[in-house]
C-alpha cells in the first residue's frame, strides 16, 4: 500500500478529531468522573483481585500497596497527561502523527489493535466462565494454558460470536448499556464481598476480619505454580495497570476536552472504585469460592445476578475494545469495509480466548500492554516540554514532511529491545519495567533527535 494511501486512510479514521478542541466543546468535571468510574469498573477487575490472592500478597501489601499504586496512577494522569492534554488539545493520534509521521503511527496502531484483540479475548473468556455454568462446562484452573475441552471451545466461540456481532452492528447502544450497567456492576462487586464473608468465618461486627483476612484471603503464600508477589509488585502493577493511558498518553484523547488540567484528578474515582475496592472485593470473593473461574465463584456467592455480572462485565469491556481494534486494523486492510475487519478482529479475539492462559496470566498481559506502548508516551512528553528548550524542532515529522521519524522509531524499538533484555537476561519482572522504560525514553529520544535532525539538516 502506498504511503499516501495509508496516510489518507489513517486521517479519515480520525477525521472527527483532526482539530484542537475548541472551548465550546469543553466538558464538565462530571463527564470525566462518570467516564473514569465506568471505564475502570470492568471485567478485568474480577480477575485481577483474584490473581493477587493467587500470587500470595499479604493484607498489608493489598491495602497499602494498592493505595500507593493508585495514588501514583492518579498523579500520573493529573500531573503528566492532563497538562499536555489541555495545552495541546490534540488526540493521541494527531499528536503522534505530528511527531512521528504516518508510517510510524500506522505501526503503533497495529500494535495497539493486536493488544486490544488480546484484551478483548481475555474478557470473552471471563464471560464464558459464567455462560458455561448451566451447561456444566469444565472450567479452566489457574495453571491451565490450553482449552479444557470441547465444552469450553463451544462456549467461547458462542460468546465470541455474540460479542463480534454486536461490535459489528454498532457501538452506541452498547456504550449506553455499559453506562447503565456501571453503577450496578460496582455494587455487585461490593455485594459479592459481603456475601462471601460469612463463608470465610468473618463475624457480624467485623471483629475478626483482620485475622480472617490474614489466614484465609491474603495469606502471603502463593498458590502452587504462581510466582510470589510482594508489596512492590502490588504498587508497581497498580500504578502501571493503565500505563498506556496515563504515561503512555492514550488519554490525551479524552482529557483534551477538560477545562483545566486538574480534571486529571477525576481518575481518582476510577482508581479507587475499580482498582481498589473492586480488586479487594474480588479477592474476598475468590478466597471464599471453590473454583478459579470468575463466573463460577460469582455464581456461588450471588447466584444468577453474580453470573450475570461476570457476563456483562466481560461483555461491556470486550465490545468497545473489539470495536477499537476493528477501527485500528481497518487502516491496514486493503479497502475492506468495517464489518469485515471487525469480523476478522473478532475471530482473532475468539481464538485467543480459547486459551485460558490469557485470563490466568492477565497480570502479565496487562503489564506487557502498558510496557509496549509507554515509550511513545515518553516521546510525546519530551517533544512537548523539552525540544524547543534544547533548540531542537518539535513536531518534527510534520514540519519536515517525514513519513517516519527515525528518532522516535528507534527510541521505541531500542527500548522494547532493552526491556526484553532486562526481562530475559536480568530476570526483571514485567511489572517493574514500564517506569524505567518511560524515564529512559525521554533522554534517548532527545539524543537521537539531536543526531537525526542534524543529519536531515545537512
Amino acid at each position: 500500500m502506498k504511503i499516501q494511501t495509508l496516510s489518507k486512510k489513517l486521517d479519515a479514521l480520525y477525521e472527527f478529531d483532526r482539530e484542537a478542541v475548541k472551548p465550546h466543546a469543553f466538558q464538565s468535571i462530571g463527564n470525566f468522573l462518570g467516564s473514569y468510574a465506568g471505564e475502570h469498573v470492568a471485567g478485568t477487575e474480577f480477575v485481577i483481585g483474584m490473581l493477587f490472592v493467587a500470587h500470595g500478597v499479604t493484607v498489608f501489601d493489598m491495602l497499602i500497596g494498592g493505595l500507593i499504586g493508585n495514588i501514583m496512577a492518579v498523579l500520573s494522569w493529573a500531573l503528566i497527561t492532563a497538562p499536555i492534554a489541555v495545552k495541546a488539545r490534540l488526540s493521541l493520534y494527531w499528536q503522534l502523527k505530528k511527531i512521528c509521521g504516518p508510517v510510524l503511527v500506522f505501526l503503533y496502531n497495529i500494535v495497539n489493535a493486536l493488544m486490544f484483540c488480546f484484551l478483548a479475548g481475555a474478557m470473552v473468556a471471563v464471560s464464558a466462565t459464567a455462560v458455561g455454568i448451566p451447561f456444566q462446562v469444565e472450567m479452566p484452573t489457574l495453571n491451565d494454558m490450553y482449552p479444557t475441552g470441547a465444552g469450553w471451545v463451544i462456549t467461547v466461540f458462542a460468546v465470541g460470536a455474540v460479542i463480534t456481532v454486536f461490535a459489528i452492528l454498532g457501538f452506541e447502544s452498547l456504550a449506553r448499556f455499559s453506562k447503565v450497567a456501571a453503577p450496578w456492576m460496582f455494587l455487585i462487586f461490593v455485594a459479592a464481598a459481603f456475601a462471601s464473608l460469612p463463608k470465610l468465618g468473618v463475624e457480624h461486627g467485623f471483629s475478626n476480619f483482620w485475622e480472617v483476612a490474614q489466614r484465609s484471603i491474603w495469606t502471603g503464600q502463593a498458590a502452587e505454580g504462581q510466582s510470589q508477589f510482594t508489596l512492590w509488585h502490588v504498587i508497581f502493577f497498580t500504578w502501571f495497570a493503565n500505563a498506556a493511558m496515563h504515561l503512555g498518553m492514550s488519554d490525551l484523547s479524552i482529557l483534551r476536552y477538560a477545562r483545566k488540567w486538574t480534571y486529571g484528578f477525576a481518575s481518582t474515582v476510577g482508581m479507587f472504585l475499580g482498582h481498589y475496592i473492586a480488586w479487594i472485593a474480588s479477592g474476598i470473593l475468590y478466597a471464599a469460592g471453590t473454583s478459579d473461574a470468575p463466573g463460577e465463584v460469582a455464581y456461588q456467592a450471588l447466584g444468577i445476578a453474580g453470573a450475570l455480572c461476570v457476563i456483562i462485565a466481560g461483555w461491556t469491556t470486550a465490545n468497545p475494545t473489539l470495536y477499537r481494534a476493528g477501527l485500528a486494523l481497518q487502516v491496514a486492510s486493503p479497502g475492506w469495509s468495517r464489518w469485515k475487519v471487525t469480523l476478522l478482529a473478532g475471530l482473532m479475539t475468539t481464538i485467543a480466548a480459547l486459551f485460558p492462559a490469557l485470563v490466568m496470566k492477565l497480570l502479565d498481559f496487562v503489564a506487557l500492554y502498558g510496557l509496549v506502548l509507554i515509550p511513545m508516551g515518553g516521546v510525546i512528553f519530551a517533544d512537548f516540554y523539552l525540544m524547543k528548550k534544547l533548540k531542537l524542532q518539535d513536531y518534527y515529522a510534520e514540519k519536515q514532511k517525514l513519513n517516519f521519524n527515525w528518532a522516535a522509531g528507534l527510541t521505541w524499538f531500542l527500548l522494547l529491545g532493552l526491556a526484553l533484555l532486562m526481562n530475559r537476561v536480568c530476570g526483571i519482572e514485567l511489572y517493574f519495567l514500564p517506569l524505567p522504560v518511560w524515564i529512559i525514553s525521554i533522554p534517548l529520544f532527545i539524543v537521537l533527535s539531536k543526531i537525526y535532525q542534524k543529519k536531515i539538516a545537512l
Partner: protein
Amino acid sequence: MNTLLKILSLVGLLLTIVPPVLFFAGAIDHSNQNLYLFIGTVLWFGSAWFWLGRKAKA
C-alpha cells in the same frame, strides 16, 4: 414517568446491595439473598435503561 423510573432504579440498586449485607448480618438466608439480588438486577436494568445515558431530544 421519569421520576417513577428513577425510584424503581433506586429500589433496584438497594436490592442489589442490602440483601448481601443482611445475609452477612445473619438476617436472611443465602437463597433469599440471591432471589432479592436477581429482582434488584431486573428492576435496575428494566428502569435505568429508559433514563440513564439517554440523549435529550432536541
